[in-house]
């Protein structure tokens, strides 16, 4: 006897993500999910991003790693509230799931936050699959990685709203073909905004910060 079920396997996560989105929406908090491979410079990028947004935009960060609080310790120096999530407590997960974000957010005063940045676990596969209740997703790629990462991990680049090419200060020392990298990104998502940045020198940050502010403002205008 066949019993029809027809349920999404991740519907428990999707339901939690909807709850998160509702809770964040009520407090007018914009949530940005930042994803990348390990070592692309997410934390350095966020350090500089936080310093450029403050005090105009009140930020908080949830940072996910399998272990250690190294990233949280670095980001906390910005003065923004930071919650570290270590996924080893959840089975060494390769991504942050919606229930983890919900629990971490309960440690934050959402009424005092405009922008919640989630630094996901460094991984270009699994985080793309898990809705956490975010408003926008960005992927960070560094120029010390292969130009063809976008076509090797198409789902990640398909689900993101913008891409950052980080560490461009290293370009003079590398054979990296940045035009090829942009081409691969656009092959997956033709209208993807791409920002060439150096988290170390700050080059290219004006355009990135402008895009981020505009994206955050668009939500608060829509909500008002």
């Amino acid at each position, binding site marked *: 006897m066949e019993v029809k079920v027809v349920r999404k396997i*991740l519907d428990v996560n999707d339901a939690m993500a909807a709850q998160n989105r509702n809770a964040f929406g009520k407090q007018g908090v914009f949530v940005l999910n930042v994803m990348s491979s390990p070592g692309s410079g997410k934390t350095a990028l966020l350090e500089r991003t936080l310093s450029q947004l403050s005090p105009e935009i009140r930020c908080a960060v949830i940072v996910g790693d399998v272990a250690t609080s190294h990233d949280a310790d670095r980001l906390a120096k910005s003065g923004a509230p930071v919650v570290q999530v270590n996924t080893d407590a959840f089975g060494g997960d390769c991504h942050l799931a919606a229930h983890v974000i919900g629990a971490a957010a309960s440690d934050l005063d959402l009424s005092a936050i405009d922008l919640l940045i989630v630094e996901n676990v460094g991984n270009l596969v699994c985080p793309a699959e898990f809705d956490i209740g975010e408003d926008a997703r960005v992927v960070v790629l560094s120029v010390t990685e292969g130009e063809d990462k976008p076509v090797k991990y198409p789902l990640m680049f398909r689900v993101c709203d913008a891409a950052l090419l980080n560490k461009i200060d290293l370009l003079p020392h590398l054979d990296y073909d940045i035009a090829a990298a942009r081409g691969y990104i656009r092959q997956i998502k033709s209208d993807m905004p791409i920002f060439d940045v150096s988290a170390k020198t700050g080059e290219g940050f004006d355009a990135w910060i402008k895009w981020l502010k505009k994206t955050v403002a668009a939500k608060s205008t829509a909500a008002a």
Partner: protein
Amino acid sequence: MHEMGIAAQVVQIAVDSIPADMPKARVQQVNLKVGKLAAVVPQSLLFCYDIITRDTPLAGSRLHIEEVPVTARCNDCGRDWTVEGPVFRCPDCDSGSIQLTSGQELEIISIEIED
């Protein structure tokens, strides 16, 4: 990479789907649809399933995975096609304005119970 977590969800949904009037039912097969763009490796999921179903009402049951191809529709010219490689552009008019019409499924379709 998270196939064990997915397998655990499959078991939970399948067990919840056993009709209330058949508490002793033996599940023979669980049918899934998995899109080719979903971040799940069918071979790994099958391996995890066999381990995680031990000592559950699904012990000994078979997991059947139907892989769903990635298909897309062009928003400009209306062409439908199957996306074979990592190029998300219309093969006719080269537009990048497309919508995916399948390939991200991760669904449990039905369970089969011994009569």
